[in-house]
């Protein structure tokens, strides 16, 4: 019976962690402003206590899911005894309470890691200040969890013998790891944010601060990149719409901090090398985390309606909004008061690294603003009583495309330049070979696809230019910048994938009966039969297809599942992949007695999008390792 009371223990640990975070913040701030060195030594101890309590508490909640303890309201609402055990563990973050808890646990993880790894590099005084800021964030989120969305409430004395089950859409390996990765990134910017606040309080932001900040930005950025890529892959596989990005408000919410974080990465270079752009960099650091908070608010409050169906309770939303506004407004006020002393001026010529870093920053910032505007526009109109609208892909694609081309062009030129000034002919000389190769690539495509639009041809040219010029750079410069080259190459590959997916795309939506044939391009799909299937917690039908192209034959079986405990049918697309194309088969509704609605897609190059995302993440991680090493050497 001991194991049955673990949730109570977890609840208790959670409350203690909340008290510890209050101690950590108040003692930390007191010690910092009173310059009390002895008290300062105590702050890390509070941090470690808080972190370990939170981890234990989270573990107990996971355990309750694992043993199907349906007397917990949260477990009963979002799990089922027939759910395979990996999904029972991922079900912890399958709904509101648990995902806020995961947020907090990851924040605690980042805080603990910062406390541990900063011991050698950062003086105690600054470290305590930074930990106090992080502690303040913990207080806010823990009180949100404990007072408005507590996952430890019991359904006693009468509790259900069976849970309601997890949303079938969430029962997928892509979704099991996508939220933790995304949150890792989101939350990781809290450390950057705390560093920026500390720098503002201290009134200095020099190379030391950059060296402290950089590894944390790079690691969080890599996690966020990975999370967004996984999310896109999940949407492609599970939602069965064959798209890879839907400009859904929730997707946008994850993209916004990514955009400012990317700008931040680049402006940090500027502070590091040229001791300029300090104010702007601090603003970006604050904005990145503010946008993470804003994203959490938008997703969790249900203020915007999206395909991600989350619980919406205005009371929770108003709590989050108050917290968000107090954190952001306080930090921006601090920024407004303190940052003027950090202004600095440096001069540089047009053909220089500085110019291109500036262009990068402007593009990313404008992109962020336009996507934020597009996401919130329907809400603005509703609040002003101007009617209901929805801003969809047309707006976003229209806005993003020109900036993407500009960005690709600037990225091909930028890394070739030196600091301060570069002779233009030198840069152009370096670009000759990549430009010739990209022209060749472009002509090959124009030859094969004569109906290509002008914008797509331009995009094609610039993305291949970026890839080839990046390859050239990575051969020329020393290996320490390899991470950057890899990430830039990743952008090129991703852009190429986006363009491919937009025009090399055949699709058909047909009604077929067993024995009939669908043809799409060179492929023929023979519909063999429909058979019943049974999984551990679902049953349904699978349709067997034989796919035939010239002398190659393979089998595809898309499924339509109905999970026990949920009557919503879910289609499981069948996908086969090689380097160049995805064949994507979705089984729709039954039509009449024998016929079925079937959608077939042949998508070329769509894998490049995720390959690009993966390369970006890898590049970020390499740059991260590099920056950690440098810091270790005291450079």
């Amino acid at each position, binding site marked *: 019976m001991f194991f049955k009371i673990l949730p109570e223990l977890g609840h208790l640990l959670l409350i203690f962690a909340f008290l510890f975070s209050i101690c950590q913040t108040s003692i930390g701030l007191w010690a910092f402003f009173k310059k009390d060195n002895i008290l300062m030594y105590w702050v890390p101890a509070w941090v470690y206590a808080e972190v370990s309590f939170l981890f234990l508490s989270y573990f107990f909640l996971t355990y309750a899911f694992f043993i199907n303890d349906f007397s917990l309201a949260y477990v009963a*609402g979002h799990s089922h005894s027939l759910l395979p055990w990996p999904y029972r563990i991922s079900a912890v973050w399958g709904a509101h309470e648990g995902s806020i808890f995961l947020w907090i646990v990851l924040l605690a993880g980042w805080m603990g890691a910062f406390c541990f790894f900063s011991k050698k590099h950062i003086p105690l005084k600054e470290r305590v200040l930074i930990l106090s800021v992080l502690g303040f964030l913990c207080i806010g989120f823990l009180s949100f969890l404990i007072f408005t969305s507590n996952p430890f409430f019991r359904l006693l004395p009468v509790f259900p013998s069976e849970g*309601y089950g997890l949303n079938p859409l969430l029962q997928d390996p892509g979704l099991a790891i996508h939220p933790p990765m995304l949150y890792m990134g989101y939350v990781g910017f809290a450390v950057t944010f705390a560093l920026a606040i500390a720098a503002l309080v201290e009134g200095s932001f020099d190379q030391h601060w950059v060296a402290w900040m950089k590894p944390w930005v790079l690691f969080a950025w890599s996690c966020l990149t990975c999370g967004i890529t996984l999310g896109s892959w999940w949407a492609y596989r599970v939602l069965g719409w064959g798209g890879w990005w839907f400009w859904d408000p929730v997707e946008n919410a994850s993209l916004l901090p990514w955009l400012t974080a990317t700008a931040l990465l680049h402006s940090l270079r500027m502070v590091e090398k040229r001791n300029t752009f300090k*104010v702007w960099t601090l*603003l970006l650091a*604050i*904005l990145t985390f*503010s946008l993470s908070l804003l994203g959490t*608010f938008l997703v969790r*409050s249900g*203020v915007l*309606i999206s395909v991600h169906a989350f619980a*919406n*309770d*205005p*009371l929770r*939303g*108003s709590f989050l*909004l108050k917290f*968000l*506004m107090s954190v*952001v*407004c306080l930090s*921006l*006020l601090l*920024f*407004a008061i303190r*940052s*003027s002393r950090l*202004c600095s001026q440096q001069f540089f010529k047009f053909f220089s690294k500085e110019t291109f870093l500036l262009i990068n920053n402007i593009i990313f910032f404008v992109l962020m603003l336009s996507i934020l505007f597009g996401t*919130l526009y329907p*809400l*603005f109109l*509703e*609040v002003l009583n101007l009617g*209901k609208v929805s801003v969809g892909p047309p707006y976003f694609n229209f806005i993003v495309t020109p900036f993407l081309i500009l960005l690709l062009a600037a990225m091909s030129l930028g890394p070739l330049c030196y600091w301060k000034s570069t002779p233009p002919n030198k840069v152009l000389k370096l670009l000759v070979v990549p430009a010739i190769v990209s022209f060749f690539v472009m002509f090959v495509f124009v030859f094969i696809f004569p109906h290509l639009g002008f914008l797509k041809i331009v995009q094609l040219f610039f993305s291949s230019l970026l890839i080839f010029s990046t390859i050239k750079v990575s051969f020329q410069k020393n290996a320490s910048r390899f991470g950057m080259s890899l990430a830039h190459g990743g952008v090129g590959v991703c852009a190429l994938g986006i363009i491919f997916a937009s025009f090399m795309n055949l699709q058909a939506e047909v009604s077929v009966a067993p024995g009939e044939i669908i043809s799409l391009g060179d492929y023929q799909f023979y519909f063999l039969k429909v058979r019943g299937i049974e999984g551990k917690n679902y049953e349904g039908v699978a349709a067997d297809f034989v796919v035939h192209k010239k002398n190659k034959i393979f089998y595809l079986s898309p499924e339509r599942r109905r999970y026990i405990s*949920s*009557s*919503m049918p879910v289609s499981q697309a069948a996908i086969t992949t090689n380097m160049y194309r995805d064949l994507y088969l979705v089984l729709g509704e039954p039509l009449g007695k024998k016929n079925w609605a079937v959608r077939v897609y042949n998508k070329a190059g769509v894998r490049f999008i995720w390959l690009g995302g993966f390369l970006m993440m890898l590049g970020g991680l390499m740059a991260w390792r590099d920056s950690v090493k440098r810091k270790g050497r005291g450079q």
Partner: protein
Amino acid sequence: MTKKEICLYFPLILFFLLGIFLSFGLFKDLRQIPSELIDKPAPHFLLPSLFDERKKISSNRLKGKVTFIHVWASWCRTCQQEKNVLWQVKQIQNLKMIAWNYKDQPLEAKQFLERQGNPYDEVLWDEKGVDAIKWGIYAVPQTFVVDKHGVVRYGYQGSLNKYGIEKEIQLIIKRLQNE
């Protein structure tokens, strides 16, 4: 303060304005039914009863009494939390309560009503959701109030398990009954 120092306040001001907008957005009810339906005669429906498929119920039956229509489904998790509000509404005298079961399995719907209790006078079974289109129903739960003359007077989309909604609906029903 110099011009530059004033500029540094811009992010603060912009974010503050954004926050004001968001708080309006949060408390404004974005889920009110589009006004096209309100004050128009109730759209036609002809649906079987959940408990007896041969018995058809038509929208002509809406006249005479104030009618409360609640659209729900057993697969809808939010609907499971509305029990208390629905029984509160049931307390009102001289009111007809109709449930509109939307795209559901009859067995599961019946089990749902057994678990939650059945406060309704009639339960419609809408397997395909065709008649629901005319009512602008694309998600559940959804609630309508129709007056004595068969005119839709109130519509709400979203969970009834929300502070204030229950009072609002009771007031509207009382007002319509006295008309």
